[in-house]
């Protein structure tokens, strides 16, 4: 199982989403992608489900959010 981390902070929408989904495509089933965004990426979440991925959102005190994504099969 691979674990990849992407720091998407400071990027303008929709760059974080495109970066995340591009990276997800390169991973295999069961691999984990963790992203750190300026805010909870609300519009990414339904896209992740469409890709068959499971996710866990952690909101941090500074307003940013980490999302742990486990790649599944679409």
């Amino acid at each position, binding site marked *: 199982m691979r674990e990849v981390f992407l720091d998407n902070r400071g990027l*303008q*929408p*929709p*760059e974080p*989403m*495109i970066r995340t*989904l*591009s990276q997800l*495509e390169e991973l295999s089933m069961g691999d984990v992608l963790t992203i750190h965004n*300026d*805010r*909870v990426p*609300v*519009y990414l*979440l*339904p*896209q992740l*489900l*469409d890709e068959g*991925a*499971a*996710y*866990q*959102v*952690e*909101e941090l005190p500074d307003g940013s959010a980490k999302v742990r994504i486990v790649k599944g099969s679409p």
Partner: protein
Amino acid sequence: MTLPRAASGGAHPLLPVSALVGGALALVAGAAWLLAEPQAISGFVGSPGSVALTHLFTLLFVTLIYLGTLQQLPAVLLVTDLEWRASGWVTVPLFVSGAVLLVWGFASGFRPIALAAGGGAVVVALGIAAAQVLATARKSPPKDPASRGLVTAVCYMFLAVTLGLLLAGARSSPLVATAVGYPATLHQTTGIIGAFMLGIVASGHKLLSMFALSKGGPLWRVRAAIALTHGVVALSALAAVAPLAGWPPTLSRIASDAAILLVSFVAAMQFIEVGALLRRRLRRRLEAPVERYVLAHAFLPLAGVMFAVGSQTAAAVALLLGFVGLAVSGMLVKILSFLTWTSAFGAARDAAAPPPLLKDLSRAWLEPVITAGLTLGALAATLAILTGSLLAARLAASALLVGSSAQLLQVLTVVMRTLGRQWRPASTAVTTK
């Protein structure tokens, strides 16, 4: 009914959702009205019915949807919380009541009091909305040209309705007419190009990138489109002011011609940029609403042909019903799905059943009906304006009624399916603080 909660730093989701549903409903009402009165587009385009229908489309369909998305989109694009979140509870109802009064005022023979009261309400509502977007942008300044374009388009929207109110005043009072002339072309140009086209160029750049997963590329075309739009409005203003200032009529004509030339450049930029975004996309198969957004751009060259054959009105109809109408319709379904999904399921805290997929929220079979109906309607309406054919006008009205009814059904389906499922929390989504 318990409402879903906000999830994106924007206003309460009821505001954008009700505006989007209201916009879809208004298009059905407009199409039914056109079916009852098809001569509104095959006859004199300055008739009360024609002007009323135009304002129903531009205000209660396009601008209402625009106003609805402004309750959420700036917060997402500018990565901050929307300022004065509660102001939408004033602006949306004020705008709708003003626009309805305005449409009624036009339809019943340009009633000055209805136009003044309705126009005034619309101006105040969009003034507050523009101030809200500017305040949000001040807190978190836009860092890319597309976000800046969106903020600019909102300002042009306010300017367009203010000019419309002045125009109504000029029609009713010789004193106002002497002071400001009849800035009809400036009002139309600011609305269609400054507000609608620039809004689609700017927000479309972001949204198409997001929906097609298009990798970033050079942004010079977006920057150029924004600069050219400023040029179009400035030249149209010069053409409107020149007669009042006693400047030679040639100056006004040159300014008008130059403005039209710049509009064609803006349209060409957008046409090429959408092509570039599609070439860079990771998602090979586009979803049906996104395809409709892309198809809208086929009306840009058609509008150019209409200008070339000398029918400015047919060109305006191709731009409004075809380009703006299809682009807004495509984004309406996509934005509504995202909005309702994120509101209902975006931060579910426990685990029992999986949330639905986005595609499960809508009925796939409705999409081709919407696209075919609205496309055929826009084509037939352009033909009706060009030829004065009552048959083409009836065809336009029928097709628009089919397309807009399917769109309303789709919009209601998305809302009802979300409301019906929102109490089943997500198994895959867990949020911790």
